[in-house]
């Protein structure tokens, strides 16, 4: 049996904009992407803005299905790390945490048993009984992050969220994430910070214009990507 949790082959996603008078416009957010995600991998996804990285994560999270290409997955749950899943502003942290936990696949009992750990990690114990609408953005992000850290999906998908909150909490959250990535958990990470990718990812996929340009060892792919960027810049400058 192969070790691949997910295998994408020539996957494409097309967005059609509708307007009776403007006709239909097609836009292939992803065109031809192939990648293999093995158990225990930390896979980095790099590429410029708008090349389809977030769309790719949505496919991996099984939120959308591609218009073409094939996906082979083993029975596994992948979750996109997000900071407010279905939060209702007028409810308190506890209720929102239960709701988010259920959305992310935990049973009510499971999430209830983790409530204290969530609120402790988020450092929100003293604000438990206030509606989260009164929270600052950072506090909401801390709550969301702490909930996500209690969910243990087979595959964790991260879209640029590497740390949240104030300086203190940024360190703590970043550390928690790094710990998870360096353990044998399977993680897919979209990030622009090259250092982070080099440090954390053993595999990297480079996407340009909806297509896989290269994939493989982190250093090799990142170097190729960098020389591509330098070339672009040289062309633009001349």
């Amino acid at each position, binding site marked *: 049996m192969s070790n691949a949790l997910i295998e994408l082959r020539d996957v494409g996603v097309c967005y059609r904009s509708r307007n009776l008078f403007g006709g239909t416009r097609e836009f292939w957010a992803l065109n031809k992407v192939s990648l293999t995600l093995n158990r225990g991998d930390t896979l980095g996804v790099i590429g410029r803005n708008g090349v389809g990285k977030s769309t790719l994560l949505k496919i991996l*999270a099984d939120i959308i*299905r591609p218009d073409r290409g094939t996906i082979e997955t083993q029975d596994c749950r992948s979750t996109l790390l997000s900071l407010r899943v279905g939060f*209702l502003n007028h409810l308190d942290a506890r209720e929102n945490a239960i709701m988010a936990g*259920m959305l992310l696949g935990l*049973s009510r009992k499971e999430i209830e048993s983790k409530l204290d750990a969530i609120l402790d990690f988020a450092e929100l114990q003293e604000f438990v009984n206030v509606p989260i609408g009164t929270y600052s953005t950072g506090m909401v992000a801390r709550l969301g992050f702490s909930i996500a850290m209690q969910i243990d999906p087979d595959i964790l998908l991260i879209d640029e969220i590497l740390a949240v909150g104030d300086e203190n909490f940024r360190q703590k959250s970043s550390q928690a994430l790094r710990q998870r990535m360096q353990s044998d958990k399977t993680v897919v990470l979209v990030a622009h910070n090259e250092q982070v990718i080099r440090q954390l990812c053993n595999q990297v996929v480079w996407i340009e214009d909806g297509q896989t340009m290269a994939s493989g060892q982190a250093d090799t792919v990142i170097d190729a990507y960098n020389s591509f960027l330098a070339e672009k810049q040289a062309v633009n400058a001349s």
Partner: protein
Amino acid sequence: MSSHYLGFIWYRSLAQLRSESARTYLGYLWWILEPLLYLMVFYIVFALVLNRGDENYVQELLVGLVVWKWFDSSVRASMDVIHQNAALIDKVYIPKIVFPSVSVLSNGIKFGLVLALLLLYSILFGSGASMHWLALPLLLFMQFLLVYSVSCLVAAITPFLPDIKMIFDKLMTLLFFLSGIFYTAESIPESIRGYFLLNPAFLLIENYRDVLIHHQWPSISAAAYICLLSSIVLTIAIIILRRFDRIYPRLIY
């Protein structure tokens, strides 16, 4: 749908109700005040201003309005419900049928409370209770099926055609006038009464009046008709919702 999502629908419905009442000073009191005011408006117009009807009229009007309310509020809430949850749908997979289900359940809980008040009113000031009230679970089941099927259908369609919300909105207003809420079957000219009997909402309200006011058993043929029609609509809605379950996130942005 797995039991996991049933648990979520239940929790989310209650959470929405709590959230709604947290937004007002009077909170839960509005669950009773709002329908009371709603009933009062129609009472003033039809019973006082137009001076309509006989001894039973007020009770007939109340039954019509209360039964209509669950249908109306759920369907209207469901029209936009997938779009309203765009941020959520974009972040985590969730069967889209969950959203109209939450609309139907949270409005159903409010309806349950108002129905209880209506029953109390019927006992104290209306035609009193009778053994025919035992048919209430059947009526509730029919009503649930009707409300749920139409709610799911509008929820399934509007993301594809956002413009259709305007049409649905006006259709609901039309249906309000055609469903015999402030009049009964007897007041419709016989030549066109047959058409009204095709409207499941009309039949449902008439059946409620038969049971609650006229101490009769509900019409089995009407019940069968409502259940059959609702089941067909619900099946179509579920097929659409399932077929496009992973397309909806791409329609709304």
